[in-house]
């Protein structure tokens, strides 16, 4: 059972402007990048299930030179709004680390 944390050297999340949240998933080498960058565990459906994102709006862009994939989705609640728990979305990546990818 392989988790995302096992094939990445760095994973982070952050706000991208007030209305988007973006995840940067840096794989631990070319092999991992090629094998997992478009895996189902990083699909729009996964972000819908983990974060409540609208799967139609999830953007996924691979950056081969950096052996990373960038995944972004519109915030589901307003930044700083009534139920805000993570203004900068900087802690959201943690739940992704334990996603089983293989």
């Amino acid at each position, binding site marked *: 059972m392989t988790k995302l944390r096992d094939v990445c050297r760095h994973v982070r999340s952050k706000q991208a402007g007030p209305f988007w949240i973006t995840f940067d998933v840096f794989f631990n080498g070319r092999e991992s990048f090629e094998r997992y960058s478009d895996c189902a565990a990083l699909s729009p459906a996964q972000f819908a299930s983990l974060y409540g994102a609208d799967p139609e709006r999830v953007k996924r*862009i691979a950056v081969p030179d950096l052996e990373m994939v*960038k995944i972004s989705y519109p915030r589901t609640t307003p930044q700083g709004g009534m139920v805000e728990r993570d203004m900068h979305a900087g802690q959201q990546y943690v739940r992704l680390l334990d996603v089983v990818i293989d």
Partner: protein
Amino acid sequence: MEQLFEGCVKVIVPCGSLGAGVREEEIEYGLAAGAQVIATDAGSTDSGAAYLALGKSKNNRGAVKRDLTILMKAQAKSGVPIIVGTAGQAGGDLNLDWTRDIAVEIARELGVSPKIALIYCEQDKQTIKRLNAQGRIKPLPPHTELDDETVDSCEHIVAALGVEPFLAALDAGADIILAGRSTDTAVIGCYPIWKGAPWGPSWHAGKTGECGVQCAVNPTLGSGILLSVDANGFEVEPLSQDNQCTPHSVSAHMLYENSDPFRLLEPGGILNVADARYTDLNGRAVRVEGSRWEPMPYTMKLEGAAAGMYQTIMLVGVQDPDVLKDIDGFHDRLLDALYKRTRQSIPSEELGEFHISLRMYGWNAVTGVKPAAGTLPPPEIGMLFVATAATQEMANTIAHACNPYFFHYPSVMGKELPSYGFAFTPADIPRGQIFEFKLNHVVQLEDPLELVRLAWIDLSDRSMAVKELA
């Protein structure tokens, strides 16, 4: 035929945000290396809508004054201009005036008289409604068409500046430019563009430098960077001698706080770095070539901040073993009891719309998602109570009504009432309003200066506090 740009334009980006801690020795190094301008932003939307809605800075006055003093001394000595964008964190008129007053104070203390340009870009609601009625305001994803109600809900609205207003101020001989909300990139890219450098490398240099030393290997070592834009590309190096920029650290910065790693929408075009090549120069500087500027019809992005309901918070520390044995169950039972208590003790016609939440710090406060079964409890949790209501008074009243339950509610009924660990008296903290960004739209413009007001401070007239010349 277009004349090829010769030479290079060197830009000091002294810090990620004015007030973050400019280093005098870094400025000296940059100037000695031939820098022709010092450019930095002083804010962003990252920290939320409160700063635009309230017209307040996030960085404190002393820190901003300290940084600006170092820069203005360097300006007076060397003659290189200073460009500051997104003044006072949000770049509204109040934020810009706050920064202007600091600059004037410093000028008087130093006994210098630089020519200071102020570029205002706050918009009144009627203007925005008119532009919208003309069909000139378009939504950016995930938003839809703008309506008047949304415009009316905003406390302040700004249009983010591109390079053109900065070029106008530079043309007019500004020594210091203090600007309202600007794209981070434009603040840094404008000067190379003004000097005739190609737009692709200039904008890309701006994006690379927007957070100062963040594009280097160690983002905590030093504060600023030096950019050098020429006919075919640009180079970047950290101002701290101990730090390095690498092709990876520089190219990875294009990912930062950006939903598309290759394309960045700016006023009047798109910065496209899909074909950019990053080359190590000497172990601490990087050369970038292949950045492209794709001109588009001119737009400015609008940002609006609205103030909403009010919140009151309370915090307790809990080590009670009965609570820690069943944190999720305790959370649900207490929350239910707090809602019932609120509805019982405050008449519904007074209460109005309200919301209560409990966040269990140490357990799942950041996500609100219940941890997997079998997750071991921590030795203690911090439990945050948040009441939201239409007025501060009502949020306070709800907190007062809930206080005894929040303080004493047992996890197991029938035992002696526990008393959880309050750290303060009074226990409730009126937190103020909720602030949210409302607009995510661009306005189409024929004239890049249509929504911009340029003013000048006359420092020669010492009898006046501040004189603005329109």
